[in-house]
Structure formats: structure tokens, C-alpha cells
């Protein structure tokens, strides 16, 4: 409770500063500072960059957790990290990587790229965009606070009941998980709605649905999945919160509850979640492969169709995570068939990428290398996916390292490699500077080799009977060598990530700026300066087909045809309300976790609704940028 009070005082202090109650001069000074600019920004590119760097931060945190796990497993009967601490590490590794690393990295790229690709000046709801980011940030901090106050969550990233109930997890760990994820979940929901409305309502003239770049399409599909998949998680977390904090009995068997309900709610969310993170990676692949093969994406319409079909089927297969629960042969069979069906649209995508490269003029840039490494790696992950989709076989694979190998092939080999490809590809657009290609190649090769060295042996560890989530294993049962190889492999991945970090730092140090279109690319974001001005497009461009920029280049045009005359551009104004709203929910979350009484929690909620109420009366409609204020340097590059 003491820590809580300190935090509240700190929060009030912050509020005092923000509202100017502290010192007028300080306020003026603050409003000019860079920090204030980033705290209050509603610019989609800046929010994207914030998302992206938060994602990288949590990716490193989750990576260190993974390294510690592999250190413990390097030899049998190791006592480096045992028992509760191992459980906390393994839980937080999963939670961090899925919710706090993969999601913000994806949102980061979506935020920066999607409005540019559809020729929009901003997202549909700039305010909500900022709110989504700050909710994510505060939720992520809340989840991780467990390391410092009390204990970290330790019931696995799935947090299965009854293990996650008070009786078996008495500390505050699961409370941090429940409330932290609830807050990030609200942010995610808001961002999903924002992207959907942006893509539906804000496309430039001529940008019909079947002319949208594939990354925009997969963003659309992902957002639609999020829209329907987040509510079940929200309900599941709400019920778990009621059970833990308010004495409800949803999951307590002795009071008539049912632990299967949690599994259903979690996996109705959890399975779409893996498609939520992989679909944007598919989109990145399509952009990168098409650009660096200098060819139109093969089978564009079938790619779109496959994306939509994957997101639909992704919702219909959650029971394959519960084959061994005992739901009966009928449900197991239905969901097994549905699961294997997903291989069809995914296969369509893989073949389309291969056919795009066929006969293309391939350039082996780092982004393209990651795309090329992605295809076989992801296909292996997909194959093992079909293997575990067979219920009788799944009884053997379940809860073994085979499964760990399977989902790391899809999530690291698929999502992370996709994100690295996207990072190298869009880095010049985000920051106006190229990443170093030599360092990039070191990054790629050490990451790829390290990855396969780490996870390929785990297939066999699983088949030899090593259970997942257990902190040690016995000697002389044939598990030593493969575990050792697996741990050695992590060094390769670590070197890769360090090379990437060095590359990021170097790119900020170097002065050399890139032109608008360093890759000779195909879509709209490459028609404007790198990095783009706040208003993106001086004049909204007119789109004449798929690969809009390529079409103009083929026709010999130096810029897009404008769809409107030059005029003042309306821009939303910065606001600190999203930060304040997220802070109040954070205080509410802390208050509920502190338990003793819920006064602080209720106070936070009241603060939240008051800021919301005040915001409703706010009539600030932003400002206009006049044509004279447009950067002179941008004059030549209209569109």
C-alpha cells in the first residue's frame, strides 16, 4: 500500500504539472520540449514510432527472459533458476512476446504505413490512436510491475484456472496479468476500430478495395479479427478478476463453476491472436517480395481472398488447443478438419510468393533475405501445425517441446522475421535514413542460423518426451545434447538482435538522407519525402490502379496525379488527455491489485470518466496548415 501511495502522489504531481497548477513558466517550457511533443502527439507516424520502439524494448526484455530459460536448461538438473522464478520467467516470456512485443511492433508498422499506402493525411481517429498507444504502454508497465512489487505472473501465458485462482496463486502476480492485459486490451480494441474506419473511409480517390496494397489488406483483416477476438479475452479477464478479487465463482469447481469456460474464452481469443500477428507479416512479405523481385504480386486477388479466408477460419478452430480436455470425438473432429482447412489459403499465399519471384529481377537486400528466410521456416511451422491438428497425434505431442518448436517456427520464423523484413524495408520511410546492409546481413544470417539451431532440436526433444514448462530434466535419458545445441543456438539469435541494435544506433548517427523512393518500390508511401511531412500528402493523389506508384513510373511520370488543388490542410491538435486517461486507468488497476480496499481503484475509474466527460465538451478542432507553410523542399514531390 505504501508503494501505491507514493505512486499516487507521483501521479498527482504529474497532473499538477500538466494542468499548469505548478508553475506557469515551467508549463511554457514543458510545452516546447521534445518530451512533451511526443507525450501529446496525435500524428500517426510518431505514434507508430512510439509503438515500434516500445515493441523493440519489450522484445529485448522477452528475449532476455528466453536466454535465462535456455541457460537453466543447458545441462540436466541445473539449479540456476528453479521453481517459482522459472515459472515467472516462462510466463512473462510468453506474455511479453505476444502482447507486449509482437502486437506493438505490428501496430507500429501499421500506424506508419497504412495511412501512407491509402493516400490519407491521418488515421480516422487521431485522438483514439494516441489513447490506444498510452493504454498499451500503461497496461504493459502494469503487467511488468509484478517483478518489482510482490511477484510476477506465474501461471503460464494462458493463465489456466484453477491454477490462476487465489487458492493456488495467492500472490498478486495473476492480478498484474489480469488488470494489465485488460488495459492493453482496451487499447488494442480502440486501435483495431481506428484502422478499420481509416481503411474504409479515408482512402484517396480511385483507391478501390481491390487496388489497396496487400499490407493494407492484411491490416484490415487483422483489425477485423481483433475486433471480434478481443471481447472474449476481455470477458475472460473480467471473470477471472471477479473470481480473484470479488469472491465470484465462475471457475471454482466447488461452487459450481467450470474451468473449461476460461479455456474456451481464452482460446476463442488466443487462436485468432496468432493470425492477428501473422497476417500483417504476410502483408509485409507480399510488399517486400514484390518490390525486390520488380514484379507485380502474383495472384493479387487470390492473396486478398486468402487473407480474408484465413481470418474467418482463424476464428473457427480454437478447440484444437483443447483436444485433450475431453470435449468428445465430435467437437475434436470438427475442429481438426477446420484447422487443416487453414493450410489451403496459407498454401495459396506461399505459392503466390514463389510465383512472384519466378522470373523476377531479384535484389538480395536485407529485407528480401528476411522474406526468403521466412518462407521455408514458416512452411516448416505450418507443416508441424497440420501434424498437431490431428487429435489422436495431438495426444502425443501436447505439452511437449514439439509444440514449443512448432509455435516458435510460426511466431519467430513467421512473425519476427516478417517484422525484421518490414523494419529494414520501411526504416528509410520512418526515419529518412537507410539501415546498414552489411550489418543487416550479419543480423540475418546469425539470426537465421541461431534460430534453427535453437528450435529445430526441440522437435526431437518433444518426441523424446521432454515436457514443456518444466524447469529441469533428468540426465542419461538422451536429452542432454539436443538441449545443449538449443542453448548454443540462442547465442546466434542474440548476436543477430545486437547487430540490429547497433544498426539502429548507427542509422541515427549518420547524416546521409535517403530520397523518396530508395527501393524503386511500387506503392504510394514511396511518392512522398522520407520521413514524410506531418500532413503526408501536399495534394491527395489520384489512384489509377493497383501498384499506383509503379503505374505512374511506367507511364514516365515523376509524381502522382493530384486529385485536389493545393489548399490549407486540416490537422488535429496535440493533446495530453489520452495520457491522462491511460494514467487514471493505470491507477485504477494498481488500486485493485493493492486489494486492501478498492478506494484507489475507484478513484482511478472516477478520474477516467471525468477526463472523458471533460474531453466531450472540448471544442478544439485542430488547426490548418496554409500552403505557404509547406516545406519548400517538398514542392517538387507533390502527391
Amino acid at each position, binding site marked *: 500500500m505504501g508503494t501505491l501511495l507514493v505512486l499516487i502522489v507521483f501521479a498527482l504531481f504529474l497532473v499538477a504539472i500538466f494542468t499548469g497548477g505548478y508553475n506557469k513558466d515551467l508549463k511554457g517550457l514543458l510545452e516546447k520540449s521534445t518530451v512533451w511533443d511526443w507525450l501529446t502527439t496525435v500524428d500517426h507516424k510518431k505514434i507508430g514510432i512510439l509503438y515500434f520502439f516500445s515493441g523493440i524494448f519489450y522484445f529485448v526484455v522477452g528475449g532476455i527472459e528466453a536466454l535465462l530459460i535456455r541457460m537453466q536448461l543447458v545441462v540436466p538438473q541445473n539449479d540456476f533458476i528453479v521453481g517459482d522464478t522459472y515459472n515467472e520467467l516462462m510466463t512473462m516470456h510468453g506474455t511479453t512476446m505476444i502482447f507486449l512485443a509482437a502486437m506493438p511492433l505490428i501496430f507500429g508498422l501499421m500506424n506508419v504505413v497504412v495511412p501512407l499506402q491509402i493516400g490519407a493525411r491521418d488515421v480516422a481517429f487521431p485522438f483514439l490512436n494516441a489513447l490506444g498507444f498510452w493504454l498499451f504502454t500503461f497496461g504493459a508497465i502494469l503487467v511488468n510491475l509484478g517483478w518489482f512489487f510482490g511477484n510476477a505472473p506465474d501461471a503460464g501465458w494462458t493463465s489456466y484456472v484453477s491454477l490462476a485462482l487465489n487458492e493456488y496463486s495467492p500472490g498478486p502476480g495473476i492480478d498484474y496479468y489480469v488488470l494489465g492485459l485488460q488495459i492493453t486490451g482496451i487499447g488494442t480494441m480502440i486501435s483495431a476500430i481506428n484502422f478499420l474506419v481509416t481503411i474504409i473511409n479515408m*482512402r484517396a480517390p480511385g483507391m478501390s478495395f481491390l487496388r489497396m496494397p496487400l499490407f493494407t489488406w492484411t491490416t484490415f483483416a487483422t483489425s477485423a479479427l481483433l475486433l*471480434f477476438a478481443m471481447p472474449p479475452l476481455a470477458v475472460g479477464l473480467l471473470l477471472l478478476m471477479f473470481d480473484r478479487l470479488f469472491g465470484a465463482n465462475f471457475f471454482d469447481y466447488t461452487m459450481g463453476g467450470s474451468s473449461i469456460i476460461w479455456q*474456451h474464452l481464452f482460446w*476463442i481469443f488466443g487462436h485468432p491472436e496468432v493470425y492477428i500477428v501473422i497476417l500483417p507479416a504476410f502483408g509485409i512479405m507480399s510488399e517486400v517480395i514484390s518490390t525486390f523481385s520488380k514484379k507485380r504480386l502474383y495472384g493479387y486477388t487470390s492473396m486478398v481472398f486468402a487473407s480474408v479466408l484465413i481470418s474467418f477460419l482463424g476464428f473457427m478452430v480454437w478447440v484444437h488447443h483443447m483436444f485433450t480436455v475431453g470435449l468428445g470425438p465430435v467437437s475434436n473432429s470438427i475442429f481438426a478438419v477446420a484447422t487443416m482447412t487453414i493450410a489451403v489459403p496459407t498454401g495459396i499465399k506461399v505459392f503466390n510468393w514463389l510465383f512472384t519471384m519466378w522470373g523476377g529481377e531479384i535484389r538480395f537486400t536485407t529485407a528480401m533475405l528476411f522474406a526468403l528466410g521466412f518462407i521455408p521456416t514458416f512452411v516448416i511451422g505450418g507443416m508441424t501445425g497440420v501434424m498437431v491438428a490431428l487429435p489422436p497425434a495431438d495426444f502425443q505431442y501436447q505439452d511437449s517441446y514439439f509444440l514449443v518448436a512448432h509455435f516458435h517456427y510460426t511466431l519467430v520464423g513467421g512473425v519476427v522475421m516478417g517484422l525484421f523484413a518490414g523494419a529494414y524495408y520501411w526504416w528509410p520511410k520512418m526515419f529518412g535514413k537507410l539501415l546498414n546492409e552489411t550489418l543487416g546481413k550479419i543480423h540475418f544470417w546469425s539470426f537465421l542460423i541461431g534460430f534453427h539451431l535453437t528450435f529445430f532440436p526441440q522437435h526431437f526433444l518433444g518426441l523424446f518426451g521432454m515436457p514443456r514448462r518444466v524447469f529441469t530434466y533428468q540426465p542419461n535419458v538422451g536429452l542432454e545434447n539436443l538441449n545443449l545445441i538449443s542453448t548454443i543456438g540462442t547465442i546466434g539469435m542474440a548476436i543477430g538482435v545486437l547487430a540490429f541494435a547497433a544498426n539502429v544506433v548507427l542509422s541515427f548517427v549518420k547524416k546521409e538522407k535517403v530520397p523518396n523512393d530508395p527501393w524503386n518500390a511500387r506503392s504510394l508511401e514511396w511518392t512522398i519525402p522520407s520521413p514524410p511531412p506531418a500532413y503526408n500528402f501536399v495534394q491527395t493523389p489520384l489512384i489509377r490502379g493497383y501498384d499506383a506508384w509503379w503505374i505512374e513510373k511506367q507511364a514516365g511520370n515523376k509524381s502522382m496525379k493530384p486529385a485536389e488543388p493545393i489548399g490549407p490542410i486540416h490537422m488535429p491538435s496535440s493533446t495530453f488527455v489520452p495520457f491522462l486517461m491511460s494514467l487514471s486507468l493505470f491507477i485504477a488497476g494498481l488500486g485493485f491489485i493493492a486489494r486492501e480496499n478498492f478506494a484507489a481503484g475507484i478513484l482511478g475509474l472516477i478520474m477516467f470518466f471525468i477526463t472523458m466527460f471533460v474531453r466531450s465538451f472540448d471544442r478544439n478542432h485542430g488547426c490548418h496548415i496554409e500552403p505557404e507553410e509547406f516545406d519548400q523542399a517538398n514542392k517538387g514531390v507533390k502527391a
Partner: protein
Amino acid sequence: MVQQQNQSSRGRAVSDKANREMKYVISFIFMILLTAAAFYLVSTGAVAEHLILPLILILATIQVFLQLFTFMHLDQKGTAFYTIFIIAGIFFAAVCVVGIVLM
């Protein structure tokens, strides 16, 4: 896309408005009747017990669609995306309920 919903002529709009209010009231009367029918079925036991659930579910569904297409204006032009997403929502909602209760 821009302004496509707003192009109807002024004269027609006025008579439309009077008609629309009448339509709301008629739709409301239907809703009350459907509700009354559901309550009647349950409280009197007029039909066999195993038929009650499907019957009241059908009545509820009709009522929901009345709400969606009259009170919530899905019958008007330019609402295609609203309809697509709300129908998808209803579909996934059904999947969730069936999944949790029966699976």
C-alpha cells in the same frame, strides 16, 4: 464515397420524414406484440416445453432485426459496412455461445 448518402431531394425528404416516424411507431407496436407473445408462451405453457426455447428465440431474433433495420436505420442507403460488421458480430457471437455452452 463522399456525400453519396445525402443526395436525396428536399421535397421527397419531407414526406419521407413523416413516413419514417409512422414506421417507427408501427415497428414499436410489432416489438411489443412479439414480446407479449414470448411472455404469453412461457407464462401459460401453451406449447410443449421442448418447443418453447426455439420459439422464443425466433421471436427475439425477429425483434432484433426490427430494431436493427428500423430504429438503427440499417434499411437506409450507405449502410453496407455497418450491416456487414454487425452481421459478422452476430455470427461470431453465435459461435461463441454455441462453443461455450455445447462444446
